[in-house]
């Protein structure tokens, strides 16, 4: 019983992670991880707000929606 519950819990957590990734909800966490892993950056990391604002600006300066 406990094993079933645990696997349901794991599946739910995986589903939540998937939805977060698909929606771009974890983009900032990804960005921080990327910086930590690659070390190829200069200057301090963007704040969550600055990161989100820049992402939005980049997204809406081209054709991103269609008929």
């Amino acid at each position: 019983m406990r094993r079933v519950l645990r696997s349901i819990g794991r599946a739910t957590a995986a589903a939540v992670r998937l939805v977060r990734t698909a929606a771009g909800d974890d983009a900032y966490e990804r960005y921080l991880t990327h910086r930590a892993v690659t070390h190829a950056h200069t200057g301090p990391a963007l704040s969550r707000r600055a990161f989100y604002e820049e992402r939005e600006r980049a997204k809406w300066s081209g054709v991103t929606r269609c008929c």
Partner: protein
Amino acid sequence: MTKIGGVILAVAAAVALAGMALHRHEPINALWIVTAAVCVYALGYRFYGAWVAARVLAVDPSRATPAERYDNGRDFVPTHRWIAFGHHFAAIAGPGPLVGPTLAAQFGYLPGTLWILAGAVFGGCVQDMTILLLSTRRDGRSLGQMARDELGPLGGFAALIGTLLIMILLIAVLGLVVVNAMKHSPWSTATIFATVPVALLVGVHLRRLRPGRILEASGIGVALVLLAVLGGGWIDHHEALRRLFDWPSLPLAGFVIGYGWIAAILPVWLLLAPRDYLSTFLKLGTVALLAIAIVLLHPQIKMPALTSFTDGHGPIFGGKIFPFLFITIACGAVSGFHALVASGTTPKLIASESDVRLIGYGSMMLESFVAVMAMIAATLLDPGVFFAINTGAGVVGSAPAAAVHTISSWGFPVTVQQMQALAHQMGETTLFARTGGAPSLAVGMASIFGSTFGRGLLGLWYHFAIMFEAVFILSTLDAGTRVGRFMLQDLRGHVYAPLGRTSWYPSVLISSALVVGGWGYFLYVGVIDPNGGVNILWPLFGIANQMLAAIALSVATGILVKSGRARYAWVTLLPLAWLAIVTTDAAWQKVASADPRIGLIAAAHALAQHLAAGALPAQAAAVAPQLIFNQRLDAWLTAVFTAVLWLVILDMARVCVRKLRGLPVPASSEAPYRRARLQPIALAGNFPEEGST
């Protein structure tokens, strides 16, 4: 194993297609269409798509993509192919595949469905995948840049002009669809108005309160717009309040135009971005729900396979099945607009070249399936009801008794009582002459959802469907106006430098006003047109969209020939030839046909004669000069589209001939090869929540 699977699929597709085509005089079940579609897509993806990717495009998984080479964790991010698929599908799927098939259902369910399937598998999917790969190999350059680099300045300029014009026509026709859905419908109007403050609230939440919490903010927003549907119903039952939201189409068009201008000059985060999150979640949710409901309910298709309107006297739009079916259904079969999304945003997410088949070919298949579902939703209605909703008052008269008489005389019986009962069920005062496709789609969707998930809630489902269409039509309207503005600023920057600065506020105000004025004009004329306006604007938009597809396919063909793969160039050349033929033929008829139901000049001439003879009622005479001017303008516009189309094709042919003769051609703009080192990406990474990093 895959061979056996392929044979089974082929047999299933053949049986389903034959079933669809041979059930001529009895209603068929929608499941035949769904089965045929799914089998055709599976075959197309597994065999043709795979072959094009491997042989024609020479997809090379060992080659590093721009996402890997420029990986900055921000806009260039190697992304799991299913996540990139989701983003790309959300970007290409708009209201187009819902409206086109609904209008084209006047020919019967069969021609439109066959074109949606064949057009997607051999045209649209190939175009999307090819442009996606070519742009990925060129650091994510846009279609216009690729046209300029690979063909020359002429191609680049044509792509820019084409994109600007298509944007203006698209927004005008979509605005018209929304206006026609809100016309004298307090419930729809109140609900759609309410989505604006909801979007603002979500925007403030995302920017100020909890930056970047997209799921949380969108969850709140979706709940609120669902409440807005309920609230609209409550207002509709409230005698005094409902009068506040009961408007004719002209002031509603004014509202849409004003909204478009304000939305384009407000910062992105306040209205556009949050509305887009809402519309994306609603879109994906509704498409999934519709697919489930169609399979569960498996309704009967009541429209005949072919109607007599294939000969050209159709009431929704004039013109024979060839070529007009092929420009009416653009999105869902081949849509040039997709080439703009496939070059630019999506290539920055591609982790490996081997993903382009799923993301490019696969997303277009799903979009095509949305078009098939729209066709099912339109054709499961009683044909009489379908024509009563979609035919303008200019064709059947504004009196219900006259309209049902005319429509019944076409062989599609319908009664005033039937229409009244239906309107009452849907919570509307009337459903006559609600042109534009949205109301009839909403009636179709409401019948599917209502029968599957609860019959008593038809009015709620109807207005949910209207709200769903309006939310993403309005977000296309915001985003399109903004893109048009950027392009206009880019063009005018050559004249006076400050005008080209995208953030200089006077330039923002003026450019936005020019773009809004452009589509606002067409929207205004569409609203005053007694035939509903969609019958003129939609073919024009279709011609423009197919012209853009032809430009994209020309660029692709030119690059294939230049890179020494001329023997495979037929893969893009055949759809290009088909589009060039249908678009040119349709454009020719729109300009030169002597039948005023088709030819724009003939229509202007006929109206001018009626006006001069004093044969028009006062109301029609008042707007006639504007309609005459507009029909002439539209004829010129059509001629311009055709000229641009052939300029690009000839430019491409010039480059190809030079290449084949060994003469110098513009150098390839492909980025140099670098070996991919990227590890496979997890579908969903385990990233710690805020605070722990």
